[in-house]
């Protein structure tokens, strides 16, 4: 298995995907990491209600507080400036015995006098104690310092702040509380570097650059963070007893806001000489439970804990844009390795990023990731509209949808580096039918497609509305029949496509039921999604179409109930996107073993958290009808453009410091689409790459979004290549022979999507008698009906005669000298909706066979549309007159032919699809016809069955 991790030094154990493989160690991953909180105060053991705001004002009237209270965030209008994450710290305590608490009132145990003596500059206020221990004494104070200590303080850009002191040069018992109303203005002054930094000298502004934010889960608010920053304040001061003179009045106590009270009216006293005896004091108190910060001075006067918001998005570890690939109708299996220029097997897509917040908790509600990816525009299906009302001009007979078939439960085979179905028994081989992911589906919208192609698409927008309309009509006329899909999956389609509310919402309802991580109470399907029963009842009253839909929805309900709950959000929505493609997602990932993993590492002394999301390959369902050989925009520009240039370009994308994708070595914005950008810009992928970029890029884009514990987002884009090598990748073809009387016969092996669900192909070797049975899409051989017999086993209706056999055995007869109209049609699994129908080449020959049915090497002369006669009619898109212009290529062949001699002939019809990078897929439709001579009594193809 290829290791898709960007940094190999950090060794994770191999992950192989949730339900697919269970590894016990994975289950422990999250648990282990929760214990790693290296240096921030771990408050997880402290009752949530008491974690921050440790000052219970009812018990402790004094203490410290911050503005903003308890939560330190950046200023809303300076959100891009880390320096605006400021806490204004305020002491609500004064030197003893003065009491100024959270109510900002000076306690009645003292009286404040205004000093009018000669020392008033140093001691503007004198304190007289009127009750308590020192009743009757007078005090003055100097060197009053509120010493602030912050957890993880330092000089670094990511420190918890700067320790220091507030208090000013001269002490007063007052604090200008009303100034706090303009605190934000002072914060702005600090950021801008001009103006006052605080409204009162006791206020201490601190820049909290380091986050203390583990994310929050459960029913808690920010105090639910398991780490909070500890802040301590130690009040130190010198106090001296004095004996003032000239005392007048009773002194002051009460409101301590000196901007509100009239300080000039405060009673006066005089102190005319400085005291000589000073007592140095520090006020220490018991710290709250679990408080670990130390002052180095023997304790703190007061303490608090604060939540400090984390604004830093995690960094993607591997910034190169990777390209993954898989086969049509399959899933992601390989990744392109630039170093060796080779494709390597891979079990899935890994998305890894670093968070500089090592305290990030996996349990945080915010930590999450999701995936969106494009699935092209070719997997368009239709079903009868149960609500079709011929009287309503706005009603349509069909409902159309984009559909990706589900994948089964699989195991990752480490030795062979591949995902394998789980085999329940060998003979006969029986596989586990449990579905792991999917189907993914969503509505196809003609109107939105028209809007896009007419107004935005680089090529179609240049054409007339009629041409676009014709193109859209062609797409929908050729939509694949939904009858090829299992009834339960059709039921899902009916449920989602009934858009009385958004299909996306219904997908969420389904996942809320089926994901056991969400349906924690194991509620019944009826309780979680009562709409299913309501729709079954409603549809069953709508006539035949409705009854069929009701039956399918009932099958879907049964399927859900029998499948049981899953570990995953199994279903996903598909929507038409502005880029002209249908898009899957968002697929929300689960925080479970095998999907999410994290680990703390130390890098240059800095502890970081590495977080990794794994998307198992089988979760990325790939389209069946869209691949790298798709022309997508129906090029009319001559030779078909290669996808290689864009593939190269994508590998040169790097994520810049600005969070946007750039090309290597340039500052130019790479033009990644808006929805794929990390940050919003006006860039537009189509514009930046030129109008025809999509023609060069039949790759599909994907994006993984992930958020750290605190909701900071980052993302990674990459590309998907879908190779046309999966089930049903050979082109399909059929041949029709008719005469002038309207008798005709069609020979062709039905394409996978033309079979109804449950139908099988029976392929028999007439020589050995060996018979093989193939489910839909499983037959990968050619259609040479002269060497094998192919029949259809209709689900519950027996087996049809071998295809084309009646043209030899006598049910259908051809006669010599009769003018036959022979038409041959071909279409590929890719680009079937375009006029060239994904075909690049066809050849028609009719070879004479001997009496034993062996080729003779003699070919009938065939006359093409220009009247040229040759032994073959052959057209290739790469030759004149097309010269690579797909739009002009007509894959249908029509010609007239008269067999001049009776006998056995072999019609040889060969078609090839549009190649990409390698040889095209080719299909041969060979079948025999028996031509009778003129003496027979009828000169038409006659259906013996009819005559009977």
């Amino acid at each position, binding site marked *: 298995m290829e290791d898709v991790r960007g940094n190999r030094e950090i060794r994770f154990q191999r992950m192989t995907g949730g339900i697919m493989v269970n590894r016990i160690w994975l289950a422990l991953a999250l648990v282990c990491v929760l214990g790693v909180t290296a240096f921030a105060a771990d408050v997880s053991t402290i009752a949530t209600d008491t974690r921050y705001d440790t000052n219970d004002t009812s018990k402790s009237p004094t203490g410290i507080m911050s*503005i*903003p209270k308890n939560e330190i*965030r950046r*200023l*809303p209008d300076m*959100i891009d400036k880390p320096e605006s994450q400021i806490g204004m710290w305020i002491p609500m305590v004064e030197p003893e015995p003065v009491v100024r608490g959270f109510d900002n009132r000076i306690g009645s145990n003292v009286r404040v006098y205004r000093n009018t003596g000669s020392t008033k500059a140093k001691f503007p206020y004198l304190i007289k104690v009127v009750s308590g221990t020192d009743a009757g004494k007078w005090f003055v104070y100097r060197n009053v310092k509120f010493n602030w200590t912050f957890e993880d303080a330092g000089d670094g850009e990511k420190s918890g702040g700067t320790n220091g002191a507030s208090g000013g040069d001269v002490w007063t018992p007052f604090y200008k509380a009303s100034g706090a109303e303009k*605190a*934000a203005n002072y914060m702005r002054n600090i950021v801008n570097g001009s103006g006052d930094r605080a409204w009162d000298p006791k206020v201490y502004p601190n820049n909290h650059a380091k986050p203390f934010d583990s994310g*929050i889960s*459960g*029913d*808690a*608010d920010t105090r*639910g963070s398991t780490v909070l920053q500890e802040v301590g304040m130690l009040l130190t001061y010198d106090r001296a007893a004095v004996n003032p003179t000239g005392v007048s009045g009773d002194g002051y106590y009460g409101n301590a806001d000196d901007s509100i009270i009239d300080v000039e009216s405060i009673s006066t006293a005089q102190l005319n000489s400085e005291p000589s005896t000073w007592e140095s004091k520090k006020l220490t108190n018991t710290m709250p439970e679990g408080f670990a910060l130390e002052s180095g001075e023997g304790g703190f006067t007061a303490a608090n804990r604060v939540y400090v918001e984390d*604004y830093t998005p995690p960094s993607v570890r591997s910034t190169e844009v990777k390209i993954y690939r898989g086969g049509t109708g399959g899933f992601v299996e390989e990744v392109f390795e630039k170093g060796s220029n080779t494709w390597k097997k891979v079990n899935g897509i890994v998305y890894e990023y670093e968070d500089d917040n090592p305290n990030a908790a996996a349990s945080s509600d*915010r930590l999450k990731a999701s995936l*969106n990816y494009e699935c092209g525009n070719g997997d368009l299906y239709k079903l009868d509209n149960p*609500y079709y009302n011929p009287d*309503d*001009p*706005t009603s349509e007979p069909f409902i159309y949808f984009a559909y990706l078939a589900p994948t089964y439960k699989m195991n990752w085979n480490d030795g062979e580096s591949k995902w394998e179905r789980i085999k329940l028994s060998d003979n006969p081989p029986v596989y586990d039918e449990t579905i792991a992911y999917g189907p993914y589906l969503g509505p196809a919208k003609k*109107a*939105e497609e028209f*809007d896009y192609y007419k107004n935005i698409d680089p090529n179609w927008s240049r054409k007339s509305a009629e041409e676009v309309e014709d193109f859209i009509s062609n797409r929908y006329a050729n939509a694949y029949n939904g009858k090829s899909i299992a009834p339960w999956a059709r039921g899902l389609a009916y449920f989602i496509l*009934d858009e*009385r*509310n958004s299909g996306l*919402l219904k997908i*969420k*309802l389904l996942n*809320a039921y089926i994901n056991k991580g969400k349906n924690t109470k194991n509620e019944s399907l009826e*309780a979680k999604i*009562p*709409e299913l029963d*309501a729709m079954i009842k409603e549809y069953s009253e709508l006539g035949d179409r409705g009854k069929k839909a009701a039956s399918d929805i009932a099958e879907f309900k049964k399927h859900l109930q029998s499948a049981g709950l899953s570990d995953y959000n199994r279903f996903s929505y598909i*929507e*038409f*996107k*502005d880029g002209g493609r249908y*898009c899957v*997602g*968002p697929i929300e990932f689960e925080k479970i073993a095998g999907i999410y993993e994290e680990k703390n590492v130390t890098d240059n002394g800095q502890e970081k958290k590495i977080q990794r999301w794994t998307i198992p390959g089988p979760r990325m369902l790939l389209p069946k009808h869209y691949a790298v050989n798709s022309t997508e925009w129906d090029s009319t520009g001559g030779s078909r453009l290669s996808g290689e240039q864009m593939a190269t370009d994508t590998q040169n994308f790097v994520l810049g410091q600005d969070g946007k994708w750039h090309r290597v070595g340039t500052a130019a914005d790479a033009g990644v689409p*808006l*929805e794929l950008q990390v940050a*919003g810009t*006006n860039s537009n992928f189509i514009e930046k790459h030129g109008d025809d970029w999509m023609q060069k890029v039949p790759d599909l884009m994907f*994006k993984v979004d992930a*958020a750290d514990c*605190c*909701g*900071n*987002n980052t993302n990674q884009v990459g590309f998907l290549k879908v190779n046309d090598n999966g089930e049903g990748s050979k082109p399909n073809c059929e041949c029709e022979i008719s005469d002038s009387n309207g008798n005709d016969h069609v020979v062709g092996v039905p394409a996978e999507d033309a079979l109804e669900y449950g139908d099988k192909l029976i392929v028999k070797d007439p020589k050995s008698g060996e018979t093989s049975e193939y489910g839909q899409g499983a037959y990968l051989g050619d259609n040479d009906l002269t060497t094998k017999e192919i029949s259809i086993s209709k689900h519950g209706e027996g087996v049809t005669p071998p295809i084309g056999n009646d043209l030899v055995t006598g049910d259908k007869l051809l006669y010599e000298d009769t003018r036959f109209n022979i038409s041959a049609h071909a279409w590929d699994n890719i680009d079937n909706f375009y006029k060239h129908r994904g075909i690049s080449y066809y050849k028609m020959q009719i070879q004479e066979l001997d009496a034993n049915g062996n080729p003779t090497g003699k070919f009938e002369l065939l006359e093409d549309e220009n009247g040229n006669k040759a032994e073959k009619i052959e057209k290739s898109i790469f030759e004149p007159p097309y010269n690579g212009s797909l739009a002009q290529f007509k894959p249908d062949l029509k010609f007239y032919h008269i067999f001049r001699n009776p006998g056995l002939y072999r019609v040889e019809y060969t078609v090839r699809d549009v190649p990409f990078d390698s040889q095209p897929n080719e299909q041969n439709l060979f079948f025999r016809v028996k031509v009778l001579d003129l003496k027979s009594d009828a000169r038409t193809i006659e259906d013996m069955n009819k005559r009977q």
Partner: protein
Amino acid sequence: MRPIRTWMVVLALLPCLATTAGAIMPAGVQLEKVLTVKDGLSHNSVLAVAVGPEHVYVGTKRYMTVLKRDGGVTVWSPKNSGLKFHQVPAVVLRGTQLWTTCRSPVAGGGTYRWDGLQWEWFEEIKDDMQSNYISCFHVDDKNMLWIGTEDQGINYYVHETNPYRKFGYLASKKGLLDNRVTCLSGRPGELWIGTLSGISVYRGQEGEKYLFTNHSKATGLPADHIVALAVSPERAFAGTTMGLLVFEGGAWRLLGKESGLADPWITALALDGSDLWIGSKKGLQLMRGGRIEPPIDYRDGLPTATIRCLTLGRQADGVNRVYVGTDKGLAILRRP
């Protein structure tokens, strides 16, 4: 004489034609016009409408269309507005401010404010928003803006009174029934929140306690997938996927087809005095005097029967109108 007889026949047939053509419009209600892309609407699928004294703002699947009082039409797209993505699923007016959101199939676009001069964009986390995936707005009687998100609860705009935060939030951790918010409504002192698990009624904060009254299946709510709310001081209705919930005497009653609903799967509600407009996939109905009238649909001139959104409004001309958003255009009804 012949022409007169012909006219008499035509006149005699008119009532019959009206009857066979569809439902009879409720008394005093007239279809004023239907707007589609041919009339300048940016997209036929109308998702939300906000009516101001001068302009009508129409959120569609592709861009926002502004219908001006003088008949002019402007389309706001990512190229000429602050909107980042194409779909505009919710819009509301708060005084002179327009609040809206946008999204693409793969991304939520956050919240946007247009103050008449410039756009301001509010993002998840960065601006205190819970989510970039916005489902609905509501402006209450105190002019507070409430923002419902698809799966992260509710935000409310506080920056005008709180310099440190732009938005406050309500979520399940504070007592909200479910963070998957689908619709909002309110009456003085109460915010009604529709979710996929029922209805939360929020009455503000008392100290640190959030005052929620939750109506869920556990408390007897007959259907809990709420998709529309219409609340006034006198009455409360909730549209669900299973019928219309009516709140009477402190209890909920579920009305279904038997009560005259064309389709129990409600898609939109709008209170119109003592009447209630009901939108569904099967047309527009009026509940008047407790009776649900027959649906108005394409036979009555609506572009389709599928109703996406309903908004009532009165512009400077003093005419009361019902704006009916459908999949195929915007229908505007005049009402007394």
